[in-house]
């Protein structure tokens, strides 16, 4: 019985390990193949180790511009979507008003809509109205649109569990609603807002499908890869992907660390034993 049980345990752990390896193999392939010196136009077969691509990551025509465009759009759409989404989340969690349930549902629909449909619909609108011209602006509009719901959902989950007595205390002490928001509410929900922003940035810089529909002749990094995929895939693309990867992991770790710190700060209460002064010896 116990032997069989242990066998089952091992089987389960082993299976989970395999699943984890499955998840990580493609990333390892990308990191490894960024050091490849491929013969021919595609980076599919290992030839020899080389630092060339890492030394000159932007040697491929157009890739630098594409990355720059992607970073600009990601930054701007993150700021836009985070501000609009946080406001929406605040309204949805903190206030009771007519139409809250339908609004909740409406926010959810874009998340349940296939990306092709989101992209195609927006393009229909731009084509029919003839404005704005397809390009940077339309990509930005699209990215804020699809990021909004993600931000709302992320910030909302942080807001639900929020201790309102802290705000009441601030107001009792004479703070105006704006001061209360800036000095109490915002710092407390900041970890949620930050992770929403991080998610938005990652989604934006990675988006291909919706961008593909609304880009006109502007080229973002994913669009560049799409164009290259059928012609030639130089190792530089793998290098830049590795850079983005390492940068995102670093940001992620930073956010987690920040969040831990914020949680520690939020957890400080007067009844915290560490804060209660030792009774003076009699």
């Amino acid at each position, binding site marked *: 019985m116990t032997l069989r049980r242990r066998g089952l345990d091992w089987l389960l752990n082993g299976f989970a390990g395999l699943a984890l390896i499955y998840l990580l193999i493609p990333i390892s392939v990308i990191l490894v193949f960024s050091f490849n010196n491929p013969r021919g136009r595609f980076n599919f077969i290992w030839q020899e180790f080389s630092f060339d691509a890492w030394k000159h990551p932007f040697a491929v025509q157009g890739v630098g511009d594409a990355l720059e465009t992607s970073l600009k759009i990601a930054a701007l759409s993150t700021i836009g979507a985070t501000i609009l989404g946080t406001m929406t989340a605040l309204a949805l969690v903190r206030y009771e008003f007519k139409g809250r349930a339908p609004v909740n549902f409406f926010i959810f629909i874009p998340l349940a*809509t296939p990306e092709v*449909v989101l992209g195609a619909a927006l393009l229909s609108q731009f084509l029919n109205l003839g404005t704005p011209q397809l390009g940077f602006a339309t990509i930005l509009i699209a990215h804020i649109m699809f990021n909004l719901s993600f931000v709302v959902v992320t910030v909302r989950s942080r807001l639900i569990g929020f201790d309102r007595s802290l705000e009441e205390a601030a107001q009792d002490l004479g703070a105006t609603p704006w001061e209360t928001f800036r000095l109490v509410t915002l710092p407390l929900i900041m970890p949620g807002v930050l992770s929403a922003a991080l998610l938005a940035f990652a989604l934006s810089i990675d988006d291909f499908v919706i961008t*593909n529909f609304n880009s006109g002749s502007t080229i973002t990094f*994913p669009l560049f890869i799409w164009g290259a995929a059928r012609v030639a895939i130089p190792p530089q693309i793998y290098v830049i992907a590795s850079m983005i990867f390492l940068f995102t*992991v670093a940001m992620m770790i930073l956010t987690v660390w920040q969040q831990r710190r914020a949680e520690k700060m939020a957890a400080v209460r007067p009844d915290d034993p560490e804060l209660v002064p030792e009774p003076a010896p009699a």
Partner: protein
Amino acid sequence: MPARLRKAAVPYLLLLPGLGWLLLFFAAPLVIMGLESLKTGTIDTGFQLTWAFSNYSDALKNYDEQFIRSFEYAGMATVLSLLIGYPLAYVIAFRGGRYRNALLLAVIVPFFVTYLIRTLSWETILSDSGLVVSTLKSVGIVSDGGRLLDTTVSVVAGITYNYLPFMILPLYASLERIDGRLLEAGYDLYGRRRDVFLRVTLPLSMPGVVAGTLLTFIPAAGDFVNAALLGTPHQFMIGNVIQSRFLVVADYPTAAALSFLLMAFMLVIVLIWARIAGTEALLGTEGERA
């Protein structure tokens, strides 16, 4: 303005920009695409609104193969993700110990690599002269002239891989919330492992299963990148058709009609799931003020 009225206006003012953006760039485009789907004409002569509902039946008739294939591939990928993801989520939730967060990070790490590159790396892995194919050939699973790239196998493998984290995270969230005492109670009542799993753990993790399958199935059914990069036109899904009708052929009415048909099928599936699971679990709105 009296203070009470001003206070009542606050939530609407907060909603205005975000909701306005979605109305303008999500809802309105859907309406315009709806009109687009009822037009006839060509890109040269222009499209006129003729309320041509036949666009829908024509689209369905001409592309039924791709529709069926989309749901077939998405279904296969969803089932595979569940089979791969559930044990992993289970192990992380119940046995992860202090490595839990590190393991979770490993699960979402694929997200940090550009989607297209992730897919391209499968092209490297499954390529004809790659390790996987040669190993499978030597074992005899793949015949000598056989290949994995450009087949159903590679496309489904790519889709499964790309959406696997969407399955694992909600599964983990629901498994992690399970009160360990319930499992102990099950064992105390002489439940065998299988009984405890089937009658306690699995039912309690159902919200995660429902959310995970939806989050995997919906994007998978609309995907066209995997079929385009890892397959041939024989593996093309409905997303490929919409993409090429819109951006290559400029046959907007058909593309628009196909988009709506895809959305309609999805909606039916989501509603069926919502029936089974309850909308609360689906929208993630539990715990909000009623």
